């Protein structure tokens, strides 16, 4: 049994320790918001937070997160901590109508949340560099970038 926190809930899973966290989330815990894209940490669709850091869950053995706190897109809103239904990033994503097919968007959101955690007021270059490892095959990049800026503004209470 491997124990860890997922979206603030204690979980115990019975799986080989080298099983990628991605499949544990999706098929053991029914958290299918986290997506399988490339399997080799090149697309970012599987991005989750492990102890607050963005991680590619497709190459993260579940044993390595024992005792850690994992956050997925399903738990993102709760990390904003004010009881709202949407994280400021999710609200911004809707405001600018960022997703097209939507498949990469959970990963984009989790990467963006990690970016804003480290750089609360990112420049355009900060955003581009911070998001460069997340592929959007629909190429909705213009709106993703716009949404991150909008969310940063909202998070900073409109201060700039």
């Amino acid at each position: 049994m491997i124990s860890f926190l997922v979206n603030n809930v204690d979980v115990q899973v019975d799986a080989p320790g080298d099983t990628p966290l991605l499949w544990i989330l999706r098929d053991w815990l029914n958290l299918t918001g986290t997506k399988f894209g490339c399997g080799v940490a090149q697309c970012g669709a599987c991005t989750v937070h492990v102890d607050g850091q963005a991680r590619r869950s497709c190459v993260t053995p579940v044993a390595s997160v024992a005792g850690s706190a994992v956050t997925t897109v399903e738990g993102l809103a709760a990390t904003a901590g004010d009881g709202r239904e949407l994280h400021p990033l999710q609200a911004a994503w809707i405001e600018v109508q960022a997703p097209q097919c939507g498949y990469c968007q959970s990963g984009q959101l989790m990467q963006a949340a990690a970016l804003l955690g480290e750089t609360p007021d990112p420049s355009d270059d900060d955003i581009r560099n911070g998001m460069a490892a997340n592929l959007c095959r629909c190429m909705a990049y213009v709106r993703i970038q716009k949404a991150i800026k909008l969310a940063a503004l909202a998070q900073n209470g409109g201060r700039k």
Partner: protein
Amino acid sequence: MSAVDVTRRWFLASLGSAAVATGFLPGGAQAGPLFGDVSSRGYSPTLWYEISGDGRILVHVTRAEMGQHIGTALARIVAEELEANWDHVEVVHVDTDPRWGVMITGGSWSVHKSFEELSRAGAAGRIALLEAGARMLGAPLKDCVARASEVRHGARAISYADIVSSGSVTRQFTEEDLKAIALKPASERRFLNRDAAARDVPSKVNGTAVYGIDRKVDGMVFARPVLPPTRYGNSIVSWDDGAARKLPGYLSTVVIDDPTGTCQGWLVAVAESWPVAAKAADLIAVSYRSDGGAASEDQMLAEGARLVENPSTGGIFFQEGDPLMRIAEAAALHEGVYRTHTVLHMHLEALNALAWQDGSTWHVHAGNQWQSVTLPLVAEALGIDQADLVFETSYLGGGFGRRLYCEYIVPAALAAKKMGRPVKLIFARSDDTKFDQPRSPTVQRLRSVTDGRGALLAYDHRCASGWPTRSIFPEFLAPSADGHGTVDVFAINGADHWYDTASQRIQAICSDVVHATMLPGYLRSVAPGYTTWAVETHIDELAHKLGRDPAEYRRALLGAKGRNGGAAPHAVGGANRLRAVMERVLEKAGWSAREALPPSKGMGLALGTGQERDMPTWIATVAQVAVDTHSGAVTVERLTSVVDAGTLAHPDGALAQVEGSMLWGLSLALFESTEYEKGLPRDLNLDTYTPLRMTDVPELDIEFLRNDHMPVGLGEPGVISIAPAIGNAIFAAIGARVRDLPIRPAAVRAAMGA
């Protein structure tokens, strides 16, 4: 003049034969039906939507949602004529049922091809509700109006909910009644050309949207395919799963014995979890007998070059006059050969399908763009009636044409049959890429003759490529315009440009070498993605050769003469609209000031009319590039596109499609390609296949010319003018002409020396 008749005869006939072949009847094609279904649930003026007793308007959407927010766009069309309250409108993506007719999502067709039928359906509902509402209000019909899901008479109103729940709507419509309905004048529009939030977006930001890969059913097991060395010509001699059997959770290996011949030499590894199935697939040792018919990229390109020079090959897509005579007699001929390399879909949701049997009915859950072509295939593979097979609908994690022909459902279904339990088959990314249905390599030869003033006297375009339709749905092949042989219009669309030409011939040539190697597919922008590369590069070359400004030269050729004058309703205005978007983009991009750009920077212009002449989306693009003359590296600084797509059903969705498709065009121009080696793409994952990332995004400037004309396509047309605009900008910057896609630095350097 002879041309392949795309929509009027061949196309409808093909849909008809599809209906026969698949058991699908096109909606409304039944003999003498009455539309208008009154049931306890509500009222359905036609099968495209239902108004329930509580006033909800459920719009039945048969088109796949793969990023276009298509449900929103189609529901806006219904709401417009129905005079609905938008808050009451819901989008329902339906599962396969013969009553929906042909189910296909491709060609950028969805809005265009649904527009009339959905508009009339909406109008029929409005008429029925107005009549019933007027009766209930005791008011003269002529004094009542429908608005926001109410029938109003002066200050009094009755809601659609109350009208429907009272059971007083009884109106039915014949096919002729529907056709006779006059649609609202544009001045009365309240939904079209006006924005609304897309209905699919919220579920796509909180993880609740359900894609093919997300479905789960009781008793389900997981599988990964074990693929043969190449697409075709393999059979299994022996296999051994001894090593896989040591894996805890490994269940079985299924040999895919496929009566349809779709899967040639496939096995499927089945396990309790996907990671175990994935590992097991790597451990299964298989020996194959292979016919060795697959070619390399270079061999496919060499064959293309040979084919375009061989006058006995090819079917005629369009011919007017006798260009060959003029070419033979010409003192000066301009000739160019343009090539594109293999490109891959790389939709982010790896191919997958879940199949299971429930009683006598088989179910499939998988993303799907063309249910009508895959459902019969899967039924045949399973040996069951099509009536006993249902494809459930989910969102698609990218379609881009790869989910039109869903042959990957066959091994999932056969594995589920063999295992006697539900099987979810998921391809590893490398599996998905190996058996992609790529855009094949293409070779095109263009020859043209001009008079002293630059007018096109003769124009000859021959294009050699794979023909996706030959592999996927041969009934869709059109007869050649001269009656000899066939043409895949989806391999040549876009070559029939809108420039005035005294004589021309356009031919499509199918490469058997491509077909022995890969299953060539439809890839976003399809043929115009490469034919327009050739046409717009060639026209630019002509302009420079003649010493003309490329914009001024195009202007002179866009005289809207003859068939270039367009046709109603789909192409009202013809080349005049193309000229209008060109004039606007020149203004926006600062074309007249381009000579002031620093050395090694330049602007290039290209026009696009994708996806087909019977549904032209008018686009003009100016690219501004900077070229590093030492390395040959090209940086695109700005892309400006002006688009006339007629009425926009969902303007913000339209803008999103153009934003994304312009970047697709840039990605295909500079960043994407692979090469076939021994029958497989060399690049199997995103470490070496490198679509554009956020750091590569240039400044985008997009404008729609707004009007009330017939809506046309928007999913793909934004792609097609980007690459030639960039190529033409490179020439403007440094005088180097590139004729191959993608444009690699080495090719730019080589062209500088040329």
